[in-house]
């Protein structure tokens, strides 16, 4: 006799430790199998875009910090690049170098959180502590530079708020030498762990075509086997001066585009970021970092869509100016917002316990989903 099953609706969140913030998932289940996932978002909605309409262009920068609070430097970076394009100004070379160094440090810090909490989500407690120990050192570098550890307001339109600390280059080099062996340690702890592989390989497979159609970008797109990185494919700032690789998912533990690939691409990317930082520290030019900051920012009537490769993916700012001191409209294309949209596609047919593994592997920050 066949077992009679009944469809069940299960609520996950909004207060759930593994949703990385305040997110509610409505699950439709057929026994243990998921048939549909509906994310409900907006619990952190602050209407950032409405606020910006009452601000001048420089005043927007602290708000961009608070979107993706694990990658604040890069949010500022993206915004500064967008407004500079609208204004048509060039920044001094030293500014570009410092921005890239800060951006790549931020990428490592953000990936460390992603990797650490991912392990935590699926039951590995130790790597989390190791990751946060190393992230702490990056945050100290940021603190040394601008006094803040999480929300910086450091990268300004046309320049930086102030120059590097005299001790920064030495400390940064020290960190690079310190951190390189730690990646190997992390591999031993988590990447090649049998239990970890069993939980993540062949789970939540995202084929390349689906990924592009859903607008997936960043490490998640690369894990699906598509070599696409805006730092190389649509270069901004001075990324074309550096020599680095773009790691893509190989499917070495299961299928291309599964959770393990998405995890491992991040590990590989940290090494590439170290390469960029090393090169940039070596040839860091001298100069004034505040000389190109415009006294009064009043862009001409026009619009720009400008994007950068945030640690999570394509972070885009669409800015419309009507010739006033405050923007007419700013729309942000946050990678987390876009990535959450593919949840239903990834989870269908998997078990309830896999939701945690899948949600952790796409690495979202709810502050940016809800803005």
């Amino acid at each position, binding site marked *: 006799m066949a077992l009679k099953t009944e469809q069940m609706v299960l609520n996950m969140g909004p207060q759930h430790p593994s949703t990385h913030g305040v997110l509610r998932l409505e699950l439709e289940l057929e026994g243990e199998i998921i048939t549909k996932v509906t994310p409900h978002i*907006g619990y952190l909605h602050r209407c950032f875009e409405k606020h910006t309409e009452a601000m001048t262009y420089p005043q927007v920068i602290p708000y961009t910090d608070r979107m993706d609070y694990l990658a604040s430097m890069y949010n500022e970076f993206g915004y500064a690049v967008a407004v500079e394009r609208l204004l048509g100004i060039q920044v001094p070379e030293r500014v570009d170098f410092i921005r890239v160094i800060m951006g790549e440090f931020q990428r490592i810090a953000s990936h460390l959180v992603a990797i650490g909490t991912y392990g935590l989500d699926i039951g590995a407690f130790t790597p989390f502590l190791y990751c946060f120990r190393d992230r702490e050192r990056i945050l100290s570098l940021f603190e040394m530079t601008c006094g803040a550890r999480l929300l910086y307001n450091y990268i300004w339109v046309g320049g930086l708020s102030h120059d590097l600390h005299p001790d920064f280059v030495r400390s940064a080099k020290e960190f690079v030498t310190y951190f390189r062996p730690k990646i190997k340690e992390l591999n031993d702890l988590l990447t090649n762990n049998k239990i970890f592989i069993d939980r993540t390989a062949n789970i939540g497979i995202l084929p390349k075509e689906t990924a592009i159609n859903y607008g997936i970008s960043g490490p998640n797109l690369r894990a699906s086997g598509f070599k696409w990185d805006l730092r190389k494919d649509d270069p901004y700032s001075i990324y074309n001066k550096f020599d680095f690789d773009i790691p893509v998912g190989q499917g070495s533990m299961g299928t291309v585009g599964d959770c393990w690939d998405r995890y491992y691409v991040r590990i590989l990317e940290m090494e590439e970021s170290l390469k960029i930082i090393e090169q940039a520290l070596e040839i860091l030019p001298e100069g004034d970092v505040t000389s190109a900051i415009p006294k009064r920012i009043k862009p001409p009537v026009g619009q720009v869509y400008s994007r950068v490769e945030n640690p999570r993916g394509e972070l885009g700012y669409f800015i419309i100016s009507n010739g006033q001191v405050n923007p007419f409209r700013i729309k942000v294309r946050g990678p987390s917002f876009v990535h959450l949209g593919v949840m239903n596609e990834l989870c269908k047919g998997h078990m309830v316990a896999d939701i945690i593994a899948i949600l952790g592997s796409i690495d979202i920050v709810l502050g940016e989903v809800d803005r």
Partner: protein
Amino acid sequence: MKTIEEIFNLLKEKFGDAIIELVSNRPVESFIVIAPLEIDKVCLFLRDNEELSFDNLMILSGVDDANGKNVPDEDGGTKIEGGTVSVYYHLESTKFRNKIALKVSALRENPEVNSVESVWRHADWHEREAYDMIGIKFLNHPDLRRILMPYDWEAGYPLRKDYKNPEFYQGMKVPY
């Protein structure tokens, strides 16, 4: 790689009056204006044409143009009457490394735009956001609900330029 002028001429040839104009006198970015009820067909063509192959929708943004008349409302403030709201589409071809921007405008009173959700699934949530924030109705969208605001929000669309915060939301005082 085709320039925006070439794409404009190509579209004009194929779709005629649905392609309204090419705005290229602005700094930084040019865009093509398209009729709101034809946008899905144009987008499908742009995606599937082998010489264009715009397979990636980078961003879809709703904008309140606020180009109507300011008139006084009941509570002594002002509201906007008439004018348009717009949707901008930024497309990219990952094959040819080409980018293009499109725009549609619809009347502010009852803005209706055809959904491009069937062309790029990515548009799904962005269209919901534009509906939530600006109040643009996307025809043929499978699941057009509010996304960031509460589902029972009755005070209108926050990103409209004449939006006013309500005093109460479901009996609770809003400015606390």
